[in-house]
């Protein structure tokens, strides 16, 4: 025990002295950077970790090419220990297509945000899905353009706070959200479609399962796979970091519902 | 005639607010003003600077200037390049509570203000930048105290209007601590 601000606390600056076992090395080993620049309480790093853990666990590290869109998550494209192809805003699925067609043995996934994928690049992901392209697209959906300051995107749910909709999005003025995962599940050519979230540990674990399943689907050559991950953006939602997980559950997840929307592997079975 | 004022500090100290209050006040007094703020990334504790140019005619200086007549130093960390720009006959207001580096006294008149302490006394550490602003106004007359006091409310977003009073108090306290007209910003003929 040690003293901290006048309280008796457990020392956490070193491994325990009593016999103990590391539960797992939680330093995500394919993420190079110790200290990234994303905001406090951001959900994106949590999703990134899940994806990279899945890459590592599936043993595809040495044939992985990650294709990144442009958003806050782009901060990671420079700091991963897997090969990365950085795309422009919205264009990652087409680049991923080019990579996969040119190198069919590569394991290819994209990391994009809702602004990237449902605003600027909606067409590309739908065409890629319809083509049945054997790649995995991961969308980090926070319902805002985090990077530019928290504006409404095409996924922002009715009632959600964003910089343009400080009183909450309303359909009359701002139109309706697009439920991308649902749309993609309805397309022939998609093999696996799921939506997770990182607002609590349970959902983090579930999301990692979904990403793993999507990746397995690609490895099995079943066609297009897709995982949407709802992530907290306290900055763009203009709320406290601690409110964000619940805000996600009550708002985003109430519309973009969490679950596996399509799995042809199971349908076949 | 143009008067340059450089402000430097670290994120969260209120540098940009102080700059805005001064600029707003100067406009109210009929001056032309130009203000450019820069932030060194989005981390807390990062660099934050502002350049203000006040003129009795249209401002012609570029957004960032090569030399300056005055400065307000709220934090040491990024101060050296700012101090290097001060011209002979310049004046600088320094927050002694966090700054130790001293500008060259041969070129620059230094006004030392224990801004944090004074702000703490008023009940809000975050108002330290207003203390320094008040002291700067006293020492230079670039803008008047009243114009600054008016400028605070205009410079704060609606959700921060409740801090107007404490900021005005800090401004006045700073004004009181500093010597009057140590280096006059304006010759008599261009006084507001």
């Amino acid at each position, binding site marked *: 025990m040690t003293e901290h601000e006048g309280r008796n606390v457990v020392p956490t600056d070193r491994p325990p002295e009593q016999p103990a076992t590391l539960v797992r090395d939680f330093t995500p080993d394919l993420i190079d950077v110790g200290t990234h620049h994303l905001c406090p309480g951001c959900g994106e790093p949590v999703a990134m970790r899940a994806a990279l853990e899945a890459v590592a666990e599936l043993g595809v590290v040495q044939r992985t090419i990650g294709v990144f869109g442009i958003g806050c998550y782009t901060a990671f494209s420079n700091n991963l220990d897997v090969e990365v192809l950085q795309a422009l805003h919205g264009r990652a699925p087409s680049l991923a297509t080019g990579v996969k067609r040119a190198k069919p043995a590569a394991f290819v996934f994209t990391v994009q945000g809702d602004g990237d994928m449902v*605003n600027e690049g909606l067409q590309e992901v739908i065409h890629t899905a319809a083509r049945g392209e054997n790649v995995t697209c991961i969308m980090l959906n926070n319902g805002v353009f985090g990077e530019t300051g928290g504006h409404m995107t095409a996924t922002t749910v009715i009632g959600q706070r964003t910089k343009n909709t400080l009183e909450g999005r309303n359909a009359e003025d701002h139109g309706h959200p697009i439920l991308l995962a649902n749309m993609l599940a309805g397309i022939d050519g998609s093999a696996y479609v799921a939506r997770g979230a990182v607002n609590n540990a349970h959902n983090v674990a579930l999301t990692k399962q979904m990403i793993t399943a999507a990746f397995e689907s690609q490895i099995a050559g079943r066609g297009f796979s897709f995982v949407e991950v709802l992530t907290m953006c306290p900055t763009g939602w203009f709320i406290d970091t601690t409110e964000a997980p619940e805000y996600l559950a009550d708002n985003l997840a109430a519309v973009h519902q969490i679950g596996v929307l399509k799995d042809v592997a199971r349908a076949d079975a | 005639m143009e008067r340059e004022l450089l402000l430097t500090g670290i994120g969260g100290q209120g540098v940009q607010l102080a700059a805005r209050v001064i*600029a707003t006040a100067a406009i109210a007094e009929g001056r032309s*003003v*130009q*203000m*450019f703020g*820069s932030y060194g*990334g989005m981390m807390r504790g990062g660099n934050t600077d502002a350049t203000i140019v006040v003129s009795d005619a249209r401002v*012609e200086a570029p*957004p960032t200037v090569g030399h300056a007549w005055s400065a307000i130093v709220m934090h040491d960390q990024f101060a050296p390049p700012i101090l290097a720009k001060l011209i002979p006959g310049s004046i600088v207001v320094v927050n002694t509570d966090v700054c130790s580096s001293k500008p060259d006294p041969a070129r620059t008149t230094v006004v030392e203000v224990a801004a944090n302490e004074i702000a703490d006394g008023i009940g809000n550490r975050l108002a330290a930048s207003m203390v320094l602003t008040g002291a700067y106004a006293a020492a230079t007359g670039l803008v008047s105290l009243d114009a600054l006091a008016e400028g605070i409310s205009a410079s704060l977003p609606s959700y921060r209007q409740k801090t107007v009073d404490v900021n005005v108090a800090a401004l006045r306290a700073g004004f009181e601590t500093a010597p009057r007209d140590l280096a006059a910003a304006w010759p008599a003929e261009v006084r507001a």
Partner: protein
Amino acid sequence: MSMRLLEGSEAIAEAMVGAGCRFFAGYPMTPFTEVLEHMARLLPEAGGVCMNAESELEAIGMAWGAAATGTPAATGSTGQGLSLMQESLAEITLARLPLVVLNMARAQGDYFQATRGGGHGDYRHIVLAPADVAEAVGLVRYAFELTFRWRNPVLVFGDYYLAHTATSVDITEVEAGERDVSWALNGSSGGTGSAKLVSPLGAFKRKNQAGYNLADHYASCAAATTEMTAGVKPIVEAEHTDGAEVVVVAFGTPGRYVRAAVRSLRADGVPVGYVRPVTLYPFPGEAVARACADARAVAVYENNQGQMIDDVRLSVLGRAPVHFIGGLSLDSSGFGIAPDLDVAVLRARIEEVFAR
């Protein structure tokens, strides 16, 4: 006159609305985002519409649609977003529509895109490059005047400094001149036997003749471009050029640094002059040539790898050597802060030109 402290982005937005702009569409990109936010706030109050378009392609499309109705309209982005708009920007010109387009650029690498048109085919946009917020306010108003006068898009070329510098400016609304919008669509000419057409492929319905005649249409667009190029008054700012041994040319915000460096050199007795093109297209070639008439050397500062220097050389046409003293200068963020924009740095570069 009422002076307000406005950041450039806000001043530009206020100036647009003051000039009658009633439609704006954009997609966020720093430092254009700032203008978009102000337009989103101001336009509804003014009875106009601001669309948070889902992408730049959609933004330019919406602006195109609104412009076709004769509504004073604008859009824009930051260089990269404008790249996406090039197809439309080229064809809006062929459709002979008025439209103001902002490029809140990062540095000055988009000079070619702006002045030559990054799209396909032969078209030109009028390009105005303000150096400070007050000038931006004036040029934005002028842009609306020009775009309606010539039925041709006008580009306002700004930058990060312009967007983020706050200045005391007067944004009192000005009376816009009469605008002829007899060509504009509102539906009412339907069923009259001569319903209007707004199209990049032809300017009017060819009743009973199937299809378009592109040869005719492009020829008439080319004639309009030629007339416009000749008709738009080139604008420069020049200082100390009489008897200047070296004249420095720069545009936009860097012009202000160059001007400061030139003044400081003149104060030290160095015979140096300064000229700043304000209209980038039509390029004020004669004025630049005149400003450089006495010079034994011309220097060009641009915050890019050298683009406007072509136009300077085309103006000076070998009468004096033209030296490039610019170069891409950016801080690590890439947004547009240029470390080279420093009066001392520029003084030194100009002195080097003297030493050659």
